[in-house]
């Protein structure tokens, strides 16, 4: 899975979490919690779909690494199960 494919998946999921936000203008470096107005439960939802859709279980301690889109992409690239395969 390329980083671009991964990005499409994340944007798709973020679009469901925050349907009212125009993701086309999302800055990859910005804090998703700010940009998408994600509270802790919404963020937890985000983590949950990463588990369900990508099979990546993110421990709480790692949450800060996924606060931005680019950070999440970096993290997922490192932790995607298929990469290890």
């Amino acid at each position: 899975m390329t980083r671009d494919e991964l990005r499409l998946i994340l944007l798709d999921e973020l679009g469901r979490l925050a349907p009212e936000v125009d993701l086309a203008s999302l800055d990859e470096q910005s804090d998703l919690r700010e940009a998408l107005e994600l509270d802790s439960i919404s963020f937890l939802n985000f983590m949950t779909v990463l588990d369900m859709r990508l099979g990546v279980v993110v421990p709480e301690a790692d949450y800060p690494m996924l606060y931005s889109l680019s950070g999440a992409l970096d993290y997922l690239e490192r932790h995607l199960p298929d990469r290890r395969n």
Partner: protein
Amino acid sequence: MSEFRMPSLGADMEAGTLVEWLKKPGDQVAPGDVVAVVETQKGAIEIEIFEGGIVERLIAKVGETLPVGSPLAIIAGSQPSSVAQAAHSAPEGQAERPAPPPVAAVTETAATAQRGIRASPAARKLAAEHHVDLEALTGSGPEGAIVYVDVENWLHAAARQPASPPGTSPPVRRERAAMRGAIGATMARAKREIPHYYLQHTFEFDRALDWLARTNAALGPDRRLVPGALLVKALALACRQFADFNGYWRDGHFEASRAVNVGTAISIPGGGLVAPAIMEADRLELPAVMERLRDLVNRVRVGRYRGSELTGATVTLSSLGERGVEGLWPIINPPQVAIVGAGTPVERPWIRDGRVVPAVTLMLTLAADHRVSDGHRGARFLAAIAAKLQEPERL
């Protein structure tokens, strides 16, 4: 046989627009089933039925705006759930009559619809001067009329609204403004009528967070807990001990509630706030509290919550979450008599056992109604919540 009618979801609701039927003729319905979605000034709300039976006929059409009390559907074989419901049932033969014409179909222009709105002259004048569509507003005046301050609040809210993002349609803006107007009116009334007193308490939150981290470490994301769930449960348990913070001020006196329904203030992205209730939170296990909390947040995000959830809270929690500031001083949501505010946990030097140590602390605040309780009692209530948070494993 009975009529399923447009419910009143609040004293300020006069009408609703049917957005979706979730049942069709022939469907079996049981008390508590969600049968339709109705758009109100406060957003789309799923409406429940309080009696069982079979949907015989759908009267209201999607898109119709109907006043509270208008028949929406005919339910056959229904058994009224209470005497009060029986009184509401149609007399013999009435079900055969055609439904009354809708007061304002959604296709009507604002100008024509405006006429049917109950609004004071002062409100109408101000609205006309600023080209405000009164249909978007919620009234706080006599008999739910839109009054001057409602329009004023709407205008203040509109002035604060950022420029609409692309693709945001005017109706959405309008709904938000209406919600802001409603919040403004309710809060203004609360500030005016309720003699608030305030207390604050800051205490160590490390133990709760540590316990949460340990618990979550063993769980998948879908079952993890957030600190808010602990706060809901701790507040609910404290309310059992301190009944004078849980209930309603009505007709000049306090009515304590046996059930502890914790309203949870949830921000709506883009602006606005609702506080749907987690019913009987004191009786739920922590995972169940978390599940309800998560369900509410998800539904609020898409604008679908039940009327009874909005009106059922007996006490409210307003939590800033992890990205806020240290404290808040909330306003009581009438007819409730208390609201607890939870700030963002912060790390700070703390003296423990005579030594300065780093600690994460939480500031809890209480706003309560002086007509019901006083500061001494409030302090004990707040301390009880804090004490419960020191023993998260018992929650």
